[in-house]
């Protein structure tokens, strides 16, 4: 869907908040706390598809807000949003998807974030407060950005603690003193996630109570080519495109149904190359054999695949 950039605010030298509205002014789809949207960001020669957590309240249908840190070196997406995006511009947006939802049966929610990883929790807070749910948020950031994050966290008090210098957050102690029906949510840079989740597992927290932002099931990956032997053509599969989409873009009509790696309809025999399997249909033995693959989700470990199609 088309969106229009309604406002851009600098929260710190490297962090901007961007407000989007539907280009035609209609209400946006309702989101849920923890949801993200995908933005198609124009770049030289190609389009970047980047996911950003929504920080606006889930019920707000007049706007979507995201917070973007300028990444150095940037892949292209965040640099464009920081340097070229301007209010009034239109941009392509994919509707919200939630891979990081609130666990509704938790008696208490323990939220741990670092840096820009705070963003999904900004949509949690109005929902948890509105439902009167017990929660505790600990956010870690650089000292230089403490003011920016403090401004994003109104009502800082017993439930919300900002840690802007090293070693003020004792993760082990924090996790050890939680009641048994607490759920843990973690979002931040990889080393932070590994440290927090590792501590929780060491303390015996069950997996069902650990939640972390994950973009599993994504269709993207390294580009490759596929030679379709019977059709006599070769298609280039871009990083943000599925093999199925690339075959369709070449004007062919390959078999497909669910487009999610579950039904098995799009299976094609592999004559050459090594597939990278991402489906839920084939058995581990079939994955290892590598002579059949699901084109809707699976990709390639080798630069080229040869398919019987």
């Amino acid at each position: 869907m088309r969106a229009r950039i309604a406002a851009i605010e600098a929260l710190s030298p490297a962090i901007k908040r961007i407000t989007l509205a539907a280009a035609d002014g209609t209400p946006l789809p309702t989101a849920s706390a923890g949801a993200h949207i995908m933005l198609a960001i124009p770049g030289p020669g190609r389009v970047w598809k980047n996911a950003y957590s929504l920080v606006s309240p889930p019920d707000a249908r007049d706007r979507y807000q995201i917070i973007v840190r300028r990444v150095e070196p940037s892949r292209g997406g965040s640099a464009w949003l920081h340097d070229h995006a301007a209010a009034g511009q239109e941009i392509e947006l994919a509707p919200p998807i939630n891979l990081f939802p609130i666990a509704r049966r938790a008696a208490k929610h323990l939220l741990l974030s670092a840096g820009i990883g705070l963003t999904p929790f900004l949509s949690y807070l109005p929902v948890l407060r509105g439902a009167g749910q017990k929660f505790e948020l600990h956010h870690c950031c650089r000292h230089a950005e403490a003011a920016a994050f403090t401004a994003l966290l109104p009502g800082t008090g017993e439930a919300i603690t900002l840690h802007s210098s090293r070693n003020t957050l004792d993760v082990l102690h924090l996790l050890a003193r939680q009641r048994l029906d607490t759920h843990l949510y973690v979002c931040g840079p990889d080393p932070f996630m590994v440290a927090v989740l590792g501590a929780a597992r060491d303390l015996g927290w069950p997996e069902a109570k650990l939640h972390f932002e994950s973009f599993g099931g994504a269709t993207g990956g390294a580009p490759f080519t596929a030679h379709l032997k019977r059709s006599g053509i070769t298609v280039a599969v871009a990083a943000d495109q599925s093999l199925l989409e690339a075959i369709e873009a070449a004007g062919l009509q390959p078999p497909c149904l669910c487009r999610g790696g579950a039904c098995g309809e799009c299976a094609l025999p592999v004559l050459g190359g090594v597939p990278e399997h991402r489906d839920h249909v084939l058995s581990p033995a079939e994955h290892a054999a590598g002579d059949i693959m699901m084109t809707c989700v699976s990709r390639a470990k080798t630069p080229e695949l040869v398919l019987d199609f």
Partner: protein
Amino acid sequence: MDLIVKPAETFRGAFTARNSDAAILRFPFPFNEDGYMYAVNIEPHVQSGPTAAYDAVFDLDEHYVGECEDRAMVLEEDPLRCQVLPHMLDAEWDTLELLMENLARDYPALFTLTKNGDAWRWVNKPLGLDQSFIFGKTETLPYPPFEYITRQVQGDFTLQDHRDDNLFMDGGMVTSQADWSLNFDLGMSFHEWHGPVPLAHELGVFDRALQYLLRLQNGKPVRRLNWTLTVNPRLDTSPENYPVWGPDRLTITPDNVGEKMCLRVELQTLTRLPRSNAILFGIRGYLIRLEELVRVKKWAARLHRVLRDLPLELADYKGMLRYRQTIVDYLATFDDGAVLNSGTAPEQDRL
């Protein structure tokens, strides 16, 4: 969408419910080949398909008023047919919003929804309702939000909570079911409530279907068809009421099989709900008497072949062993053995 709603008919007692020619031609016939076996037959729920039953997000037809009245009677006798666990309140409002917005858009002559911030007004002309309420405030509606809106839509609904990498049936409105019980299944996980289905577990169907549904995305609903046979056009074939409808199964004879035996098809839709991240499962049932169905030549011949060759376990699970041969003998008279095109479209414009 044009929709002419019949005056009330009955799906019990005298069974006055019948399908018009138009209703027969829009029936979602489920068999695209001459044989049937379980598969993960899920596809995107786009608003087009082999018949007009696929044209709306939530399909209504000429039986709308009669089915809503039958639901009200079932709930009067047994309030446990509608239950929602307390942690699903957001999913209740999600359902109300989804159904009201879609019905008002797809059937503007029958329903209107007016919003002024959180102050909403819902007008349902066929049922004569005009309700103003505050979205999010349960006390401003005559029933809780899920029950309020599903009393006004054809088909059963269940609410699935998504947690622990699984789906849990934590709510539902189930009054026109093919012999399963919400009160029994409430709170069960995906594999638990599918426990009684034969063969499919061994095929891995439920493992794959669950993985697929856990990835179901907002704004991208999917659908599948399921089917069984029901004696008389009776909506409420529940385990709770088995003493009421079970004896009907003994009444099938070669003389009445065409009139009494019905093919029951469920157009099942799965929609991710936006606030709650729950999944709404719609089970929109259609009943067609065999004597109505055989007026479509292709469907008559195909149903004959499917039922004749159905594996024994499936025929047993679907409860048809007692009268399967009677049905097959009846349908055989409409099957000349000619090769049929694949697909489910009726391939005729009139009867």
